[in-house]
Structures are given as structure tokens and as C-alpha cells.
């Protein structure tokens, strides 16, 4: 039993939910609750009003339209991991969803909740940065769409206003032949990533993006194509690793892994993600 009283709202429509947060900027939004509920149980978060998104009956669809794969904010990780449209059009997002937390967490947690929580170690963040995702915020006035770079501002701090809900995540459909990957370093399965990395590359390597998580307050995105003129040889991987190391200068540590260790691991994970992405391209002569 939680110690502090709070108002609980579980509206049946998105409109009701938006009205509630339009009128009151002190509402804590509850989606899957996989981050919020532990924090409430520990007394770290003591909301006065909780708005559950679990009964809206919307925001739980995956669709493809106009070259964009769109996931409603309430799509649960288990669905992101297995949905055929996500597997086909953004395989690195499926790969990230498959390793979020554990089975129980994936059955309940949502992609929108994870994004809105914006833990710098979250599995989705580097993927969204690497594939050029956009995040839709909805208020009673209307929608606005931000890039991942605009949305993620700092540790657990995003561009979402109190009157807005994260309602959807869209990613460009991965072009045919391109390769993508997601890699994470963690102590054991189910623990938060220490460093994670996602990559997206074209078959001819004229485009090669690597994004890193866990090495600063927000995902770090790097363009690596300029190192790959001769393919993914040793020299290229050294350059990619160096770029990852340099870009991770804001990495801060915890008791298990200090900032310098994270930077060293960023070097490794960036190379690993890039190599795996290149291996998954189609129609490229190796």
C-alpha cells in the first residue's frame, strides 16, 4: 500500500485524458508503470494525481503509412518486439524491445512510457536517435512532432509540456537493403544497459549513423560514413571507435562503471553496432 493519498483517473477516451492535463499541470501520467510504480513504491515520487492511460482503447496500434512506421504510445514492449510490421520496417527497434527489462516488464511497459521517462540507459533511445524517429506530442490544442534530438533534453527530462501526452513514435521505413542493429552492454540480462548503441547503414555505406546511449544525459548521434570509404576495415573501425570515444565526453559514472569505462565501452559498442548493421545489409559485395 502506498503511503500518500492521490487522485486516480482512468479515462476511457483520449479527449478526457487531454482535458484533465490541460486543466491541471500537476498530473503524473501512468502508462505501463514499469518505472513510475517502483519509484512510487520507494517513495521517490509522490504524485497528487495519477492519470492512467491503460483504458483509453487507443494509442495501441502499429501502422505503416506514407513511408512511416508509427507506433501508438501505449504499444507494449512485447508487441514492439514481435509485431511483424516493426520487424520488417525497423528491425533494430524490435531488437531493442526484445531486451527491455524481463518478460514481465515487456508485457506491461510501453514504448511511450519509456520515451517519456527518458532514462539515458533506456534501450529505445539510441535506436530512435539512429533511425531518425519523430515523437508526437498531443495536447487539447493539437499535435506537435519533434525529432528525437529535440525531444530528449536531459536525464529524465524531455520537451513534453505538462499539458501534453506522448501519443506516438514514428520512424521512417527502413529502405530496402539497408542494415540496422542494436547492441547493449549490461552486467546481467535484465539489468539496465551500461552503454548501448544502435546503427543504421545504407548498403553502399554512403550513409552510416551510430547512436550511443548511457554516455551522457541524452543519446549521442554520430555520422560515420566519412570513415567508411574503404569499407569496414580495421582503420575504419579505429576511426569509428575514436569518434565514439570523443563524443562520449559527457559520460558520468556510477559505482559500477565510471565515466572513463563507459567511454571505453562506447568505443567497443559503436564498432560492434556498426559491424552488425553492415552485416545485415542486403546486396552489398563484401
Amino acid at each position, binding site marked *: *500500500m*502506498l*503511503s*500518500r*493519498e*492521490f*487522485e*486516480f483517473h*482512468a479515462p476511457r477516451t483520449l479527449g478526457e485524458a487531454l482535458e484533465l492535463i490541460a486543466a491541471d499541470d500537476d498530473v503524473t501520467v*501512468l502508462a505501463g*508503470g*514499469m518505472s513510475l*510504480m*517502483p519509484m512510487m*513504491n*520507494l517513495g521517490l515520487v509522490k504524485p497528487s494525481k*495519477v492519470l*492512467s492511460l*491503460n*483504458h483509453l482503447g487507443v494509442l495501441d496500434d502499429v501502422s505503416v503509412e506514407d513511408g512511416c512506421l508509427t507506433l501508438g504510445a501505449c504499444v507494449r514492449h*512485447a508487441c514492439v518486439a514481435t509485431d511483424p510490421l516493426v520487424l520488417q520496417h525497423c528491425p533494430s527497434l524490435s531488437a531493442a524491445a526484445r531486451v527491455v*527489462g*524481463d*518478460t*514481465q*516488464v515487456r*508485457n*506491461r511497459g510501453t514504448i511511450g512510457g519509456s520515451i517519456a521517462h527518458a532514462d539515458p540507459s533506456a534501450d529505445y533511445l539510441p535506436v530512435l536517435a539512429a533511425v531518425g524517429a519523430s515523437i508526437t506530442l498531443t495536447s487539447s490544442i493539437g499535435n506537435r512532432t519533434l525529432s528525437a534530438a529535440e525531444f530528449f533534453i536531459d536525464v529524465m527530462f524531455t520537451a513534453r509540456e505538462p499539458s501534453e501526452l506522448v501519443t506516438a513514435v514514428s520512424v521512417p521505413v527502413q529502405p530496402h537493403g539497408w542494415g540496422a542493429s542494436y547492441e547493449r552492454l549490461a552486467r546481467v*540480462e*535484465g539489468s539496465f544497459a551500461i552503454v548501448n548503441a544502435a546503427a543504421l547503414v545504407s548498403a553502399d555505406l554512403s550513409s552510416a549513423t551510430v547512436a550511443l546511449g548511457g554516455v551522457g544525459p541524452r543519446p549521442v548521434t554520430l555520422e560515420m560514413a566519412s570513415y567508411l570509404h574503404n569499407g569496414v576495415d580495421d582503420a575504419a573501425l579505429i576511426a569509428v571507435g575514436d569518434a565514439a570515444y570523443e563524443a562520449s565526453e559527457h559520460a558520468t559514472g556510477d559505482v559500477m562503471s565510471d565515466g572513463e569505462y563507459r567511454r571505453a565501452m562506447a568505443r567497443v559498442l559503436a564498432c560492434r553496432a556498426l559491424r552488425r548493421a553492415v552485416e545485415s545489409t542486403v546486396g552489398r559485395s563484401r
Partner: protein
Amino acid sequence: MKATIEVRINGLTRTVEVDTRMIAADLLRDELRLTSVHIGCATGNCGACTMLLDGSTVKSCCILAADLEGQQITTIEGLGQDASELHSIQQAFVRNQGLQCGYCTPAMILSTLALLSTNPDPSEDDIRHAISGNLCRCTGYHFIIKSIEDAARQIHNAEQLGA
């Protein structure tokens, strides 16, 4: 603040008044006396509070009771048709000594049930992956994994006999 919810628990539809501060595990344990649901950590790590929510395993410490409106819950008390006979997964845990103190066991068995419903012939890797959200501090997992392998075999054999 109070809320009235209707939930289907172990096959019975119940209308219950809950305090909105209640987590699902409180409702199951304290109100409905389904004490197989154990609270180990209340932070979503240990998995001892696992329940089936609309057929999927979730951690009942991380869901508000008031948020369960209209949903179906199964705990280990609802497993099998007859309380006098253990479910074949439970029998496999007994046979292989897949438990010591027993605190994690109901949740382990629900995770096994969820695993075997989608993957009737899991590899050891599949099993380890499937129970990674259930901590056991006694067994070292070895006999739990043996139990799950045995349960899969027994269920497979029973189906063969049935067919």
C-alpha cells in the same frame, strides 16, 4: 480515495472496492487472500509477485489495483481444475526439487506456464531467458531449470497420449 472495480480473478468475476493507493499485490493478498502472490522487492526486480494479467505474466507490485478494472487475473490458486491435484508444472517442481524456501515458486510456475504456452519445447537458453524476471536466492536455478524441462516433457507426453 476509493474506486470500485470489476475484475475476473481465477475464473470468478468480483466487484471490489479498492483504495487507490493499493497495488495489485495488496488486493490479491490482503483482500482476496491469494497469498501465493509474494512481495519481495516492490520495485519490479524480483518477480515474486508475478500474476497472469489477461494471460501474460506481469509484476503485481507495479500495477495499481484500481487500474485492473475489466481485466482477467490468474494466480497459482487458479491453476488446474481441481485444488486437490497439483498442476503438471507444480508436480515437476516437486519431483525435481525445483524449490527450497518456496518464496519465488508460485511466480516461477506462472512464468513456466507462460513460457510453455508459446514454446512447448524450450531449450535451456530459452528457459533461462524466460525466467530472467524471477529471482531465486536459494536454488542457484539449476533444479528449477530441470523442473521446467521435465514439465515440458511431461506435458508433451500427456498430449501424445491424449492424441
